């Protein structure tokens, strides 16, 4: 795996995700500056980390989505390369139109920082092959704008094509408005692009990889990516 983690002004989870990648793949990730116009040669995974790029000015992720490096990220995605956007990274992917829809203010208007339960909807993607469909993961969230919204037609297409990878559920894995902490449409926590190579999700799997500090349910996501890229 040769990962590039893009650093925007105001990103703050680049260290966490780089450390998760190192822990799981044994290989250090390159940190790439947003104003660069190219990714390091042979990059096979691009990560847009969490944080508050550009202070969330205008709209979350809006300015970062137009940064010079994003042309290279878009080209990488168009070649079928893996692009993972976590939290603010998901917002950036939506603003860049690499994923459909938009992340709106949480329905309860509050910033939510807590552990949530996610159901894995399918295991046949580059991001989830080390999980089983139906697995329930305990993963932290920390966001004020994570309420996934799109027009009805887009939602229908996402659902019909099986592009919802993660949903907010109860600890037993059941859909329940009480456990859909930000009010997301259909409890959507993470979606894939048409070719399944771009994933955006609000929760932070990179924060649950170290047994020393708690659950390790996030490991499977990075192990899946590593398995796919090492086999390539």
């Amino acid at each position, binding site marked *: 795996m040769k990962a590039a983690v893009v650093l925007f002004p105001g990103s703050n989870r680049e260290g966490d995700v780089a450390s998760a990648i190192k822990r799981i793949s044994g290989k250090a990730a390159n940190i790439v500056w947003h104003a660069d116009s190219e990714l390091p040669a042979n990059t096979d995974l691009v990560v847009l980390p969490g944080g508050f790029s550009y202070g969330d000015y205008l709209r979350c992720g809006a300015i970062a989505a137009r940064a010079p490096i994003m042309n290279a990220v878009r080209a990488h995605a168009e070649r079928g390369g893996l692009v993972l956007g976590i939290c603010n990274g998901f917002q950036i992917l939506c603003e860049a139109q690499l994923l459909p829809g*938009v992340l709106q203010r949480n329905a309860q*208007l509050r910033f939510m920082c807590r552990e949530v339960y996610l159901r894995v909807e399918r295991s046949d993607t580059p991001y989830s092959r080390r999980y089983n469909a139906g697995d329930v993961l305990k993963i932290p969230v920390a966001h004020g704008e994570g309420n996934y919204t799109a027009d009805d037609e887009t939602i229908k297409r996402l659902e019909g094509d099986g592009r919802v990878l993660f949903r907010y559920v109860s600890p037993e894995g059941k859909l329940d408005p009480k456990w859909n902490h930000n009010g997301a449409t259909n409890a959507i926590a993470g979606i894939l692009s048409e070719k399944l190579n771009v994933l955006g999700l609000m929760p932070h799997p990179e924060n649950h990889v170290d047994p020393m500090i708690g659950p390790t349910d996030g490991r499977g996501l990075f192990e899946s990516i590593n398995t796919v890229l090492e086999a390539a």
Partner: protein
Amino acid sequence: MKARVTVTLKNGVLDPQGKAIEGALKSLGIEGVESVRQGKVFEIELSAGDRVKAEAALKAAADKLLANTVVENYRVEVLS
């Protein structure tokens, strides 16, 4: 040349900020408030003097950055 771009949420899109403001106005005793929708106004200075070109540039600016047309509408006005 002065211009203004106004960005508003599309009808039907949840606007929790507008709702919160609506609640605050009601609690201040301001009467007759039926609903509030929050938007954004951009005041833009343009160098060119050509109105048609200016409108085209502003429309491009709104489409590419100022508005997220998934959930927002915009209106472009060249003022002087």
